[in-house]
């Protein structure tokens, strides 16, 4: 993840900024949407909404923070609003579309484990409150504590403590679960 650079003062248009951000962080934003929304249809809508709000936000981009920080702040804001707006009752159920998307069994044990691990990780993230979700997603995207602090607004000490907890939870769940899988 090499995204801590600021846009230089060559005054690119907000269309250019959006294209640049979508190129660099498109996949990360898709992963972020998947951490906030389990339903594929709603996830697609959320992802579109994130891109749309990102494009709008660049009208006010002033290079005071890095492009990456800006992108993640907008994306987390849109996604957290989505979580507050949605009422989750059936989050443990899968839709027909999701069921259809599951690959065949003969793709092998490794693929099945990967899928299961990802599902467990996503389920774990989706249990968290929006602010903690911001931290774990940023951690999984390989950001350092300073970058996470810039995005979330938490102090470095607070971020470090939360990351320590995240590492413990992930180690416990994935090493124990990994042996069983």
């Amino acid at each position, binding site marked *: 993840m090499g995204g801590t650079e600021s846009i230089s003062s060559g005054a690119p248009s907000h269309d250019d900024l*959006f294209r640049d951000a979508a190129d660099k962080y*498109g996949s990360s934003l898709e992963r972020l949407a998947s951490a906030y929304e389990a339903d594929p249809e709603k996830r697609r809508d959320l992802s579109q909404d994130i891109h749309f709000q990102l494009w709008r936000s660049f009208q006010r981009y002033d290079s005071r923070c890095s492009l990456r920080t800006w992108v993640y702040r907008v994306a987390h804001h849109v996604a957290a609003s989505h979580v507050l707006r949605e009422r989750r009752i059936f989050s443990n159920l899968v839709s027909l579309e999701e069921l259809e998307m599951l690959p065949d069994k003969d793709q092998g044990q490794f693929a099945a484990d990967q899928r299961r691990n990802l599902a467990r990780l996503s389920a774990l993230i989706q249990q968290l409150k929006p602010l903690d979700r911001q931290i774990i997603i940023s951690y999984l995207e390989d950001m350092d504590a300073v970058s996470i602090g810039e995005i979330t607004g938490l102090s470095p000490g607070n971020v470090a403590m939360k990351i320590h907890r995240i590492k413990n939870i992930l180690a416990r769940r994935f090493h124990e679960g990994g042996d069983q899988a």
Partner: protein
Amino acid sequence: MTDPKTIWQNQPTEPSLMTLEKIRQKTQELHAKTRRALLGRMITPMLVIGAGIFGYGIAQVNGPAPRVVLAFAIFATVWSLAGQYFLNRGMWSATFAGDAASSTGLESYRREVERRRYLSARFLLWSLGPVVLAIATFIVPILSLGIRRGMVLNMTPFLTLLVVWIASVFVIRMRDQRELQREIDELNDIERANIS
């Protein structure tokens, strides 16, 4: 391979198809959606007006004090229209994406939770309030008619359902407000921990 970071970063993702063309299209869709939402919100005042006219009609023919019923119906209508104005104003005050980017995740999330709490409280005052008053403007004349004709027992199931509905809406909204307040309290704690 059970390294969570590897699992996370290697997950299959659909490439985003949000081109600039599609974004402009979405802007137009959003304007249309906003117009539809505004029209949809006029349903509540319409129902209030309908209930008022109905109640006044019954009161004029059979019920007590038609002028009092009319006054209450007009008051409920004005209250409901004013309520729509204030609720809409609160809804459109959502944080603009550019502002969200200038503030941290903690700040923008806090603003959003506070806005939701404000809207939830205003819903009881500006939406449920006039609806309950409008219902009263037609229930009271019907009830007085029922008493005179000895048909109150027949109306009991409907009245019970009405009371249960109003109580449920109230309880659900109050629970929402408590949950949002708890979230705000937790954010306050995080902010305090951030400073210390």
